[in-house]
């Protein structure tokens, strides 16, 4: 099997090294980069927990070879909050709306929503909700995640509490 040099920028930091051709991007980020916030839930591209942002786009890091990321700029969930700990708006919305329980699928959800709301993007609730179909959460029943989505899109919440 072949081994290949790889240079990537992860959360603003340059990483250089060599990787086996067969190494997945999620394994590279976790094991070589130490970005253990990238969670591996299924390794076949369904659950979405391993979602990261590669050159601005939310992608499944289990469905990319590490070597394919050579030259790319990658953002993981560790790269969103401000240095002083101030949460990214997506993280804050999920926290305020109790959008997580065990937290295992959370980094993937965060990265998909962060990619879609980056910069001046003002995606509709429908766009964001559609992106949620690419994530499986076993704990929350998606209640808080949907509320966070509405908050991010500036939509009112349905009154829920008696």
């Amino acid at each position, binding site marked *: *099997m*072949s*081994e290949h040099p790889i240079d990537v920028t992860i959360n603003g930091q340059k990483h250089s090294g060599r990787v*086996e051709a067969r190494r997945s991007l999620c394994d590279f980020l976790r094991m070589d980069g130490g970005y253990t916030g990238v969670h591996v839930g299924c390794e076949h591209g369904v659950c979405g927990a391993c979602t990261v942002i590669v050159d601005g786009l939310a992608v499944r890091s289990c469905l990319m070879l590490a070597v394919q990321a050579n030259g790319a700029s990658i953002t993981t969930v560790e790269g969103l909050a401000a240095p002083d700990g101030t949460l990214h708006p997506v993280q804050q919305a999920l926290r305020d709306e109790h959008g997580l329980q065990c937290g295992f699928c959370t980094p993937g959800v965060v990265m998909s929503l962060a990619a879609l709301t980056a910069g001046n993007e003002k995606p509709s609730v429908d766009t964001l909700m559609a992106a949620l179909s690419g994530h499986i959460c076993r704990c929350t029943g998606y209640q808080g995640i949907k509320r966070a989505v509405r908050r991010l899109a500036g939509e009112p919440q349905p009154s829920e509490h008696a």
Partner: protein
Amino acid sequence: MKMTGDQRIAAPRQRVWQALNDPEILKQCIPGCQSLDRESDTRLKAVIAIKVGPIGARFAGAVTLSDLDPPNSYTISGEGQGGAAGFAKGGAKVRLTEDEGATRLSYDVDAQVGGRLAQLGGPIIDATAKQLAGSFFKKFGEIVASAEAQPVEMQASAVTPPAGPAAAADRGPALAQAGGPQARSEARRSPSLEHQGPPMAWILGLVVAAMVGFMVGHAHGGTSYWVGLAIGLLVLAAAAAGYEFGRRAAAPVITLDPELLERLTRGSKP
């Protein structure tokens, strides 16, 4: 699972019999047969690389024969191991009868797959099996017919894998040659062929179809069709190994794909 049926082949029984018993023909009838090497009288190593779209798999296997009653009937059973993929095994009771100058081959197949193959296999395997068995019939028909037409000297060169349908078609006549008189002469040289020359690869082609038929009936997983496809082809591959082996050994022998093994044992360092 079980599957029965019969097939009329437009050629005399003896011709069908012998053509189906020529390893050269069978090698070329079997997609992706990279090598069919006899290691000893009781051991044969076959490497078959199957590739369908992104699905690629290698297989090695063996086959045993029983209830031999040439040229009327026999039972064949084959088993193959696919390493991480799992295993496949099948058997068939086969009968050949004259049919107005043609040959009617009736079969009674029982087969199953196991391991990751079965777990991931899907219903489309059925379609694949039909496709597979169909193409097997078609190609075989062509070969036999064209062989009747023009018997030529057979090349003894090692067999290379068919590049694909087109290439295979080109090779039609060559296959025919292989199935020609040369086969008979070889048969004479090797008496075992006379008694033990049932069309195993072809039968196992049906076993494949049977297995995938089985998969349809019992396995699920609508989005994993490709694996089933692999299974079908893999077992056919096993059949090739089985074919040769079946003539030489009484018990199945499992050999691993040397290339994959080599790559694995070479380890992670380049």
